[in-house]
């Protein structure tokens, strides 16, 4: 077990390193950099910018170094906690990202837990009551749920909420709590708003989980050991929970691990629609204005979040299934 964890850890570190290179490269792709756009802006608004000033700015942020040196400078800073400077917001990047990253984590993980619990419960119910009306309804819903784009669900939910309930369902906090420090009341307020992004993000994942859980459990229920258990007099629920469900849980956990990249992607776009104060909207504006350090840091941190999440799910899977930890 320890050997497996160490192996996975090593892989994770290598992956993180490569991801940092890719994030940096991707941000460098657009032609020009922030400085040229900034200078053009200043000139357009009538302010004079001397070449000496531009050179000084260039040297200060290391924008005139060749690309590999710029990358090394950036990575060195990142590892010390300095994520660079956001030219668009005129603040260090660290001030902007941590609060938003924290909220992204909150939204993503609460959706993940919601998806697991609901998907598991409905999947088990659907498999044990096969061909019932409830089963058909859930199966139909799960087919539809997999196909709906999540930002569309967000739009429709917002429209329904606005039109019929006169409620503003966007955002994570009510207006009064937006700038206040954290308190119990703020937390409760957030929970009240959190259900919208969870439902929007969770529909696709839950539908997927239901289908997987149902298919696997149906396969297990047909096996002879279940009949043996029943014949020996085990009560149905105890029989169900102790054996088939534990085995059917295996593919469930392994596919759940890959839900994290999907969730983080989905959270990015849904938060733009719903106006959540998470990483999505900030990343979008950073990319469109070529705010290099902000965008690169975001891509790096989101990827790191994903990789750490899949690492954790790999460990959980190895703990659950001995074939994985012995077989590598």
């Amino acid at each position, binding site marked *: 077990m320890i050997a497996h964890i160490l192996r996975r850890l090593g892989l994770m570190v290598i992956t993180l390193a490569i991801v940092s290179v890719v994030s940096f490269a991707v941000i460098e792709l657009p032609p020009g950099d922030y400085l040229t756009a900034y200078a053009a802006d200043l000139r357009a608004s009538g302010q004079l910018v001397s070449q000496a000033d531009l050179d000084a700015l260039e040297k200060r942020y290391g924008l005139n170094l060749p690309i590999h040196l710029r990358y090394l400078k950036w990575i060195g800073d990142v590892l010390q906690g300095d994520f660079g400077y956001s030219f668009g917001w005129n603040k260090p990047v660290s001030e902007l990202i941590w609060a938003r990253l924290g909220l992204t984590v909150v939204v993503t993980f609460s959706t993940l837990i919601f998806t697991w619990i609901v998907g598991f419960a409905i999947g088990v119910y659907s498999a044990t009551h096969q061909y019932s009306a409830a089963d058909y309804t859930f199966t139909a819903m799960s*087919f539809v749920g997999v196909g709906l784009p999540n*930002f569309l669900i967000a739009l429709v939910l917002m429209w329904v909420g606005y039109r019929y309930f006169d409620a503003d369902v966007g955002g994570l906090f009510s207006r009064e709590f937006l700038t206040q420090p954290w308190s119990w009341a703020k937390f409760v307020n957030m929970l009240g708003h959190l259900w919208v992004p969870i439902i929007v993000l969770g529909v696709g994942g839950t539908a997927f989980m239901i289908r997987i859980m149902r298919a696997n459990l149906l396969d297990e229920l047909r096996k002879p050991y279940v009949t043996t258990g029943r014949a020996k007099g085990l009560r149905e629920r105890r029989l169900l929970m102790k054996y088939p469900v534990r085995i059917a849980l295996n593919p469930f956990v392994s596919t759940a691990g890959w839900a994290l990249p999907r969730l983080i992607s989905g959270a*990015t776009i849904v938060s733009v629609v719903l106006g959540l104060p998470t990483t999505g909207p900030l990343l*979008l504006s950073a990319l469109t204005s070529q705010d290099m350090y902000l965008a690169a840091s975001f891509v790096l941190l989101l990827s790191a*979040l994903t990789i750490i999440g899949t690492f954790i799910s790999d460990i959980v899977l190895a703990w659950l299934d001995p074939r994985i930890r012995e077989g590598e």
Partner: protein
Amino acid sequence: MANESRSVAASAAEQPLVRLAEEERAFVASQWQLMWWKFRRHKMALVSGVVLIGLYLVAIFCEFVAPYGPSVYDVKYTYAPLQQPYFIDPSGAFHLRPFVYGLKSSRDPRTRKVVFEPDYEVVYPIYFFVKGAPYELWGLFEMDLHLFGLEDPEGIYLALGADRMGRDMFSRIAYGTRISMSVGLVGVLLSLVLGILLGGVSGYYSGLIDTIIQRVIEFIRSIPTIPLWMALSAAIPHDWRPLRVYFAITVILSVISWTGMARVVRGRFLSLRREDFVLAASLAGASELRIIVRHMVPSFTSHIIASLTLGIPGMILSETSLSFLGLGLRPPVISWGVLLQESQNLRTVASAPWLLLPGAAVVLAVLAFNFVGDGLRDAADPYVR
């Protein structure tokens, strides 16, 4: 039926045109025929297949299907609602040909908003295969025949309402069908080529090269896609022509999706390598290339087709999401995602919910592809009952 089989066995020479019994047809049927028969049993997949064919027909002939051009605008009809066709006129008479009432606008004195009402005085019958505004089909043929429309140029038929500039939503959604449905195809073809190449190499040669390619695939899959796509799309220069942007978007989408195809192909190659027929072929002296192309590839072609079909809705959804954010295709190119960009403003959507209808088109296409893909996958798998 027993008589038929006896006569087939006994006198095949004298009666070469005997109809085979049902079971016997199954024995001599080709792989594709078997797949088609199994696919036919899935009602949902069949219906979805018909829907898809309909969507692609609209995509191919969108200039003909749309009653108006995509950029024809008239600010008189800004955010006009859907016009419902009627069969029974105000006097109670039934007409076989549907008609719409004229559209008149007035300003609400209290809210100062423009309000549209049907003008019951004026009646415009809807004609099919009507001569309307001229267009160039596929940019080649000059035609002016439209699937449906009004004969009277004074009137307007907004089947799905109008948008911010008074442009007909139905026409724009029809034109958007062409771009949205084709982006999926091109992207999936690209990921097919990459996936088969790398997955095949990985599965056939295994060992070190397999491990390397697998690690690369795992790495790519662990990057969250939307941030990566956003970053790549933001790198597309604004002054590129729409067609170049279109191809750049499909390349970006394929960069991640080839991994799914590669994993499927690799899995198939790994399991097929151990099959007896491969051993027999190599013992008979067939070259490696011949074994791969002539023996192994046909065995998983059906799976490839099923994976392809299941990969297209992902592409459509991705392109729609990117364009919705403003990072993918941009106006004047029309796709469903670009149309949905208009609905980002909640106040606008609240008063003109028909702006969300391109979303319904996306859902329809994605669901249809999912059902057809499921049906194909079940039909291709010889182990499903």
